[in-house]
């Protein structure tokens, strides 16, 4: 109100507009018009908010620009409702004859713009809206003048009763109305409230619009058409119905206490409507670098992201009698919490609590209808959506070694039932359907899953589904290494006979749902589950997917972290009443890991990528801390996480473990090793510098990692570099055979005759198994770095590649089948070293160090685990072990389940065995190796979490001795620099870096390694 409005102007205006307008309105208009009388008069007439309506005398109303008028309606909804009440009677009576199917939603005022000149329309005149048809539209809406196709497909025009075009309505209205009217979901009537006597182009015409909604919208659960078609390529979701409700000034009379919408009330980053929760986020998020100084997130590690429960608040619950072991107090708390999560606060409460995604609206219709709108999916329903529809379960994220398995087993027996007995599924189903359909529409790349999920949960199939799904008990999905352990733990901890147990694994497993459903507990692996899931054909998914489980438990749930992986999609498609994720590391690499878990858990709406991406991922990557805050607030109620440092009510640690001693052993390389390393380093650096020069570091990421791999292996032992130890992946021969046979299955019809016969593959595999030497058909020498083609022919890698005209693909020299380089499998050979390592045996500094350590331990009789990432290094270690009479067993990826169990048993029980050689990946998860009290980590791994997880196999419940963990690092090498990178990585995991920063960090990191 800067400039002073002069009184003469006021009275001039008053004399023209009449006494209906308050002084304040006129002063405001004058102010907006900068004291120009004519302009002010225009403003008053042009502005068509209810406050300016000449028929009413309103004081203290704000002048708002025409554009924002609908919002103004919202703010004054109280007033407006009264207005609506009045109209309701008159309009509803007119419509009674045909209104059985049409409900009156409400009316609102719209500022139409004149598109004609010279015509006139009077206040009270009926107007007819013309909605442009789609080009291919066949059936125009009944009762609406659909004469000609509008030139612009988005413009909604209106005409008078003589069918003369008068004007158009604002785009924001058109945008909402158009899709709804087209689909005959909504009907609009309108009349003129006020218009200038003689219309000129762009004159304002005040209209009153009454909106009626068709009941088909609610009963049929048919939501696809509710989506604005134009938004399908756009990631931002536009739902016309909620938008229309807003324009009409309807506000929900009932909302859940905390809704997801609270977190994003405004899209614009600058003028955020900051809720008290997020007062801090007011700073513009664009200034990414500014964040670092003040951003508390940067110090967060995993625990800070996801929060650690102050467990002292939780109640304890005694385990059922069937449990044959004592639970520690914190485990009893977990049991209580988990049961609460499954049963809900109380069923009644859940039934009467509004689901956070939904809002309740009261329609203006005299039939007093209440409509529930899902602000996220755009769905509407007249049935009360209660929180019952949310999946039951959560994430048990206690740190490793706290006994998640035992807690889960106690849950299995404390709360048991059969899938589907909850009786809430119809609502759940339809609810999910709506959301999934939404995804299909908005995120095309993601369409695999929703399509499938829709098939599962589609409303039409609902009745069929319910009867065809068998009711099952508990399904536990775990990595293959843990299968035996789950079985053993259930058998030892549960009173015999109280649970029927079945391990669903292996080739001969039954596909028949009935026998699976009969068991109380079915244990299976992620691989088995993924293999039974076919994304193309949902109906044929038998086995695990044809059962409605009472409870599904994902052990080491981070296995599903990549949301686009088959295993992740498969897990999300399982049907269950209760869902649990067990994981010590809910976030392994980035925030997106959480998304997969939420999708599995059906935590709505976060299981839909569009929402997750828009409200969490994007803001998070952009450095907006609200993303993180939101994740925390989502996780808080559904996750329980305690660490070994958590304390109980009295402040005592919840778990007392013998101390663990972490130590890094820095080794000095010998002269010879140093020379070799330096030579290799120089060679690698030349290549790396070339990439830097070209600015193509990230394009050559794989090659650079390869260079680094060689350097890292060199730190273990130079022999490793002399070998080409990339055989680990396929050294499992049966896997090899499977891959060949799979290849056969894929061959198109024309190629069938070329396909490899099973007998031939078996022969080749047998040959490999027996270590038969054979010769390369090209060089006629013994194989040197042999590869196997998909057609099961063995050749030297170089010979084969040399025979090709281009480097990526060519013909198999033996059978002329076209093959590409990535189809080649490195053939396992007896010895992967090109030097005779036995004869020329040299200890590396690390091996010397390790041998010293083991020698010191020998007399004490304590057992040790030696971890390396490279099985080739484990091969090497066997030589000095044998020579020094250190008895050992070995566990790596080549062993099958039985063999693994045997090795673990042997190591745990045979007191003569001092060492377990273990590959870091094989030993990463779940295995309980508390028989050992020493762990030696021979080489650093990029991700410290993986390393930690392996080491924690020995530092967990059941460990009685002091634990020593020793990591070997060779001084002055890439390993030492990796330590620094690990520290950075920790920060990246904790989300302290933005996307851009991560990108540059990666380059920085690589540069760091090559200094």
């Amino acid at each position, binding site marked *: 109100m800067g400039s002073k409005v002069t009184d003469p102007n006021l009275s001039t205006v008053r004399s023209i507009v009449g006494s209906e307008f308050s002084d304040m309105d006129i002063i405001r208009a004058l102010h907006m018009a900068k004291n120009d009388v004519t302009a002010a008069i225009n403003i008053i007439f042009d502005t068509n908010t209810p406050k300016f309506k000449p028929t009413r005398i309103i004081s203290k109303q704000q002048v708002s620009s025409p554009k924002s008028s609908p919002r103004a309606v919202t703010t004054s909804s109280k007033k407006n409702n009264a207005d609506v009440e009045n109209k309701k009677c008159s309009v509803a009576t007119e419509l009674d004859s045909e209104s059985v199917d049409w409900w009156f939603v409400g009316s609102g005022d719209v500022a139409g713009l004149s598109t004609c000149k010279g015509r006139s329309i009077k206040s009270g005149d009926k107007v007819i809206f013309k909605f442009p048809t789609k080009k291919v539209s066949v059936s125009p809406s009944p009762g609406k003048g659909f004469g000609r196709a509008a030139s612009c497909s988005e413009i909604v025009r209106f005409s008078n009763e003589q069918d003369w075009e008068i004007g158009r309505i604002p785009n924001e209205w058109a945008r909402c109305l158009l899709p709804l009217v087209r689909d005959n979901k909504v009907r609009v009537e309108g009349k003129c409230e006020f218009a200038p006597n003689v219309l000129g182009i762009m004159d304002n015409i005040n209209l009153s619009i009454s909106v009626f909604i068709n009941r088909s919208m609610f009963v049929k659960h048919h939501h696809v058409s509710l989506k604005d078609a134009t938004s399908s390529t756009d990631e931002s979701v536009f739902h016309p119905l909620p938008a229309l409700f807003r324009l009409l000034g309807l506000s929900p009379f009932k909302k859940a206490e905390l809704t997801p919408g609270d977190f994003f009330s405004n899209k614009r980053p600058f003028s955020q409507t900051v809720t008290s929760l997020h007062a801090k986020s007011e700073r513009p998020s664009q200034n990414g670098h500014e964040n670092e100084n003040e951003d508390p997130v940067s110090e967060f590690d995993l625990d800070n992201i996801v929060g650690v429960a102050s467990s002292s608040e939780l109640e304890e619950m005694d385990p059922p009698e069937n449990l044959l072991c004592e639970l520690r107090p914190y485990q009893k708390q977990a049991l209580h919490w988990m049961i609460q999560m499954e049963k809900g606060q109380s069923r009644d409460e859940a039934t009467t609590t509004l689901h956070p995604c939904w809002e309740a609206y009261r329609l203006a219709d005299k039939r007093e209808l209440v409509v529930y709108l899902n602000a996220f999916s755009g769905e509407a329903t007249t049935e009360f959506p209660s929180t019952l529809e949310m999946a039951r379960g959560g994430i048990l994220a206690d740190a490793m070694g706290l006994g998640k398995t035992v807690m889960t087993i106690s849950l299995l027996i404390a709360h048991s039932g059969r899938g589907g007995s909850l009786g809430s599924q119809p609502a759940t189903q339809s609810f999910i359907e709506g959301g999934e359909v939404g995804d299909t529409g908005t995120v095309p790349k993601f369409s695999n899953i929703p399509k499938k999920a829709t098939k599962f949960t589609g409303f039409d199939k609902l009745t069929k589904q319910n009867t065809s799904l068998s009711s099952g008990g508990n399904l536990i999905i775990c990595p293959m290494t843990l299968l035996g352990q789950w079985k053993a733990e259930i058998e030892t901890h549960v009173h015999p006979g109280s649970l029927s147990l079945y391990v669903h694994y292996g080739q001969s497993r039954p596909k028949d749902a009935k026998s699976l459903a009969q068991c109380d507990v079915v244990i299976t692996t992620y691989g088995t589950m993924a293999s039974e899931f076919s994304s193309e054909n949902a109906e044929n998914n038998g086995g695990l997917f044809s059962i409605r489980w009472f409870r599904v438990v994902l052990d080491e749930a981070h296995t599903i972290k990549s949301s686009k992986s088959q295993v992740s999609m498969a897990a999300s498609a399982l049907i269950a009443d209760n869902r649990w994720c067990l994981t010590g590391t809910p976030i392994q690499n980035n925030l997106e890991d959480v998304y997969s878990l939420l999708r599995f858990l059906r935590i709505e709406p976060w299981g839909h990528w569009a929402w997750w991406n828009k409200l969490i991922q994007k803001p998070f990557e952009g450095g907006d801390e609200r993303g993180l805050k939101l994740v925390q607030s989502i996780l808080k109620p559904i996750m329980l996480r305690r660490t070994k440092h958590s304390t109980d009510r009295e402040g005592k640690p919840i778990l007392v473990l013998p101390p663990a001693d972490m130590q890094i052993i820095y080794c000095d390389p010998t002269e010879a090793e140093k020379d070799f390393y330096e030579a290799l380093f120089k060679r690698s650096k030349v290549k790396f510098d070339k990439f830097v020069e070209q600015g193509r570091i990230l394009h050559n990421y794989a090659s650079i990692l390869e260079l680094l791999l060689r350097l890292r292996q060199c730190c273990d032992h130079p022999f490793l570099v002399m070998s080409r130890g990339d055989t680990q992946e396929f050294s499992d021969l049966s896997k090899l055979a499977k891959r060949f046979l799979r290849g056969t299955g894929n061959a198109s019809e024309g190629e069938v005759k070329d396909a490899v016969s099973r007998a031939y593959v078996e022969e080749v595999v047998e040959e490999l198994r027996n270590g038969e030497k054979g010769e390369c058909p090209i060089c006629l*020498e013994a194989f040197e770095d042999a590869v196997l083609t998909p057609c099961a022919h063995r050749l030297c890698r170089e010979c084969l590649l040399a*025979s090709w005209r281009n480097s990526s693909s060519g013909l198999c020299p033996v059978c002329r089948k076209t093959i590409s380089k990535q189809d080649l499998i490195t053939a396992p050979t007896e010895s992967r070293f090109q030097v005779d390592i036995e004869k020329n045996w040299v200890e590396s500094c690390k091996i010397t160090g390790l041998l010293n350590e083991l020698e010191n331990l020998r007399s004490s009789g304590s057992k040790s685990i030696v971890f390396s990432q490279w099985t080739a290094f484990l091969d090497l270690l066997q030589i000095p072990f044998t020579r020094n009479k250190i008895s050992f067993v070995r566990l790596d990826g080549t062993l099958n389940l039985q063999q693994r169990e045997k090795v673990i048993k042997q190591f745990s029980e045979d007191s003569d065995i001092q060492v377990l050689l273990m590959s870091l990946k094989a030993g990463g998860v779940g295995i309980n190796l508390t028989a050992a009290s020493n762990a030696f980590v021979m080489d650093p791994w990029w991700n410290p979490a993986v390393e930690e997880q392996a080491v924690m196999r020995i530092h967990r419940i059941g460990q009685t001795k002091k634990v020593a963990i020793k990591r070997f690092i060779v001084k002055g090498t890439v390993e030492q620099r990796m330590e620094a990178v690990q520290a950075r990585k920790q920060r990246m995991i904790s989300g302290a870096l933005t996307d851009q920063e991560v990108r540059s960090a990666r380059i920085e990191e690589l540069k760091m390694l090559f200094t």
Partner: protein
Amino acid sequence: MANSNLPRRIIKETQRLLSEPAPGISASPSEDNMRYFNVMILGPTQSPYEGGVFKLELFLPEEYPMAAPKVRFLTKIYHPNIDKLGRICLDILKDKWSPALQIRTVLLSIQALLSAPNPDDPLSENIAKHWKSNEAEAVETAKEWTRLYASGA
């Protein structure tokens, strides 16, 4: 010298050709150029070439085994897939060459070609026409040529 850096593969092949020759085929390297072979193939039984001894020359180019050996009949032969210069129309010597093939397999293929002339993919148009129009007569001519040029040379 061509012989000084002879690939191991060629040496190995040569040794094997000499120590365990294929029936009806002999191949021996020239003394001054180990890449040049003198080859003799016996006409297969029950073919028009039965009883004949056919001389060929075989040369392993620098790129061998990534490129096919060059082979040519020195003995005149009446065959639809062999022209009067002794050049042979055989796919494995052209685009169907594979480094997994060897001298031995090449020569065995040529021997098989003698047993089964293929007039549909001719190198020598006239002979092929003859073969197609009057096979008995063509076979007679082949026998005749064998007697004339390939007997006991």
